[in-house]
């Protein structure tokens, strides 16, 4: 089977976007190390997922990658420069959309620009934000306040807020896990479409094996205490992925392989 990435190019040929080398993390006052020697590279256009039991350090890893917390050791490099703090070229999404209730949908989408570069820059970015809202199907909701949006719509607005700064890497921490299954499937397909269109490099934290296999070119299975990558599972399924692939035997084989690895990781 041909190895396809989200952007349709073989990963080995594309340049390295994100590199983690020997990342460790122990929180102050915590006896256990949260992360121990995590190394991997993300190549341009790859979709990678990390899956692991609760508390194994997934969010910690993502926050280090986003420059939100410093690692205790090791080095994170994005686009050739070390990550030493939050950056405009890193896009993030969390489980909660966290839209500010006193801003309209459009103002929420423009918030990163406004906070970083000021009101004038935000005004200039308006057309871009409008186009983004249109691509995720929120046309007509620009002036709506968040309490008028459903959970799925709010997360779509959060996607636009992530995209508006045109980041080179998407860091996604269980972005759809608060949504119902139908909306979630739909949002996953939406995410795949966007990633393909943007040739995005994406890193997804998830609890769902199906979601990880469905979306990813590679799945990192994490083990807990200390948090580390126990297995790397490349997913060789054709793109674009569709929801009915979930029922295929190849898909089932990946799911089984990851589940076995997870089980031994969690209960040994």
């Amino acid at each position: 089977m041909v190895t396809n990435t989200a952007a349709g190019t073989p990963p080995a040929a594309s340049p390295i976007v994100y590199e983690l080398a020997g990342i460790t993390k122990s929180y102050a006052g915590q006896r256990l190390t949260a992360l121990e020697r995590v190394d991997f590279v993300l190549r341009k256009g790859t979709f990678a997922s990390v899956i692991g039991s609760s508390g194994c350090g997934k969010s910690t890893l993502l926050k280090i990658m986003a420059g939100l917390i410093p690692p205790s050791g090791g080095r994170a490099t994005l686009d050739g420069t070390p990550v030493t703090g939050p950056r405009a070229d890193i896009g993030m999404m969390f489980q909660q959309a966290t839209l500010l209730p006193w801003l309209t949908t459009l103002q929420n989408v423009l918030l990163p620009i406004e906070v970083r570069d000021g009101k004038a820059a935000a005004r200039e970015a308006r057309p871009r934000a409008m186009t983004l809202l249109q691509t995720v199907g929120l046309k007509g909701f620009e002036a709506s306040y968040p309490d008028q949006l459903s959970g799925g719509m709010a997360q779509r607005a959060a996607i636009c807020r992530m995209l508006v700064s045109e980041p080179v890497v998407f860091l996604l921490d269980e972005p759809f896990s608060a949504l119902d299954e139908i909306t979630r499937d739909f949002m996953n397909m939406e995410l795949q479409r966007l990633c393909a269109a943007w040739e995005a490099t994406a890193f997804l934290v998830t609890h769902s094996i199906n979601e990880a296999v469905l979306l990813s070119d590679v799945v990192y299975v994490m083990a807990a205490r200390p948090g580390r990558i126990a297995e790397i599972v490349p997913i060789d399924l054709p793109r674009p992925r569709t929801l009915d692939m979930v029922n295929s035997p190849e898909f089932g084989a990946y799911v089984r392989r990851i589940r076995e690895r997870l089980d031994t990781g969690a209960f040994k």
Partner: protein
Amino acid sequence: MSTPDTARSDTVWVEHVALIDRIPRSLGMAALLVGFVLAWQLLCMSGAVPAILLPTPAETGADLLFVGQNLLSGGYVLKAAATTASEMLLGFAIATSLGIALGILVGETRFGERAVMPYLVAIDTMPKIAFAPLFVAWLGFGIASKVALAAFMATFPVVVATAAGLAAVDANAQMLFRSMGASRLKTLTRLKLPIALPYFFAGLKIAAVSVTAGAIAGEFMGGGEGMGQLIRVAAGQLATARVFSLIFYLSLFGLTLFVLVGWIERKVVFWRR
């Protein structure tokens, strides 16, 4: 014409609501008022309390009208009311600005939280009204001592409410702002202060009530020409009906301020309907 659907919608649900939960608001409130006045009248007629200490409802009603007329015609009660109102408003303004400043210091900085807050709590637990003679000694018998006491009593609720509001920001929103590279000041003005607004207004409502108490307590200490002074004189002459009607009109001030704050809150915090 009876499809299964309409048949189902004809089902009658019998909900048992206790009698006390079925009394309409207007009826309940009117009944309580009538009951209160009636009990008051009976107490007067029983002779258990000397007539000079407790006026009858009718006497009080007549005096309410008299004082009301005096107020409307610009008499001495209006002058006293204006004095007290300006003490309250000045005290409220000082309490609000001081409360915001201290609230931000306590809610936003470690220094404020660790070093300032314990002292504020200590002062807050004191009976603040006991400071009234001190304020008079420091600031004299004029309006300043009344304003100061009103502000002193009303500042703490604003501080506590503002600080609580600043602490109410959830971790996700803070992480979002951090990921956008927002400075501390930006995070404060664009995220924390808006979140704190409903708390802040709740504090202002308490402050609105506190400044009334502060201004009157200050006036009781003497000097000044406010409502507190009128009440003091009336009570000294055992004109109890007058005391009651002055208290009634006085309570309208606090209520007005309270309602005004609520109205501004609904305009400002529009997203919290």
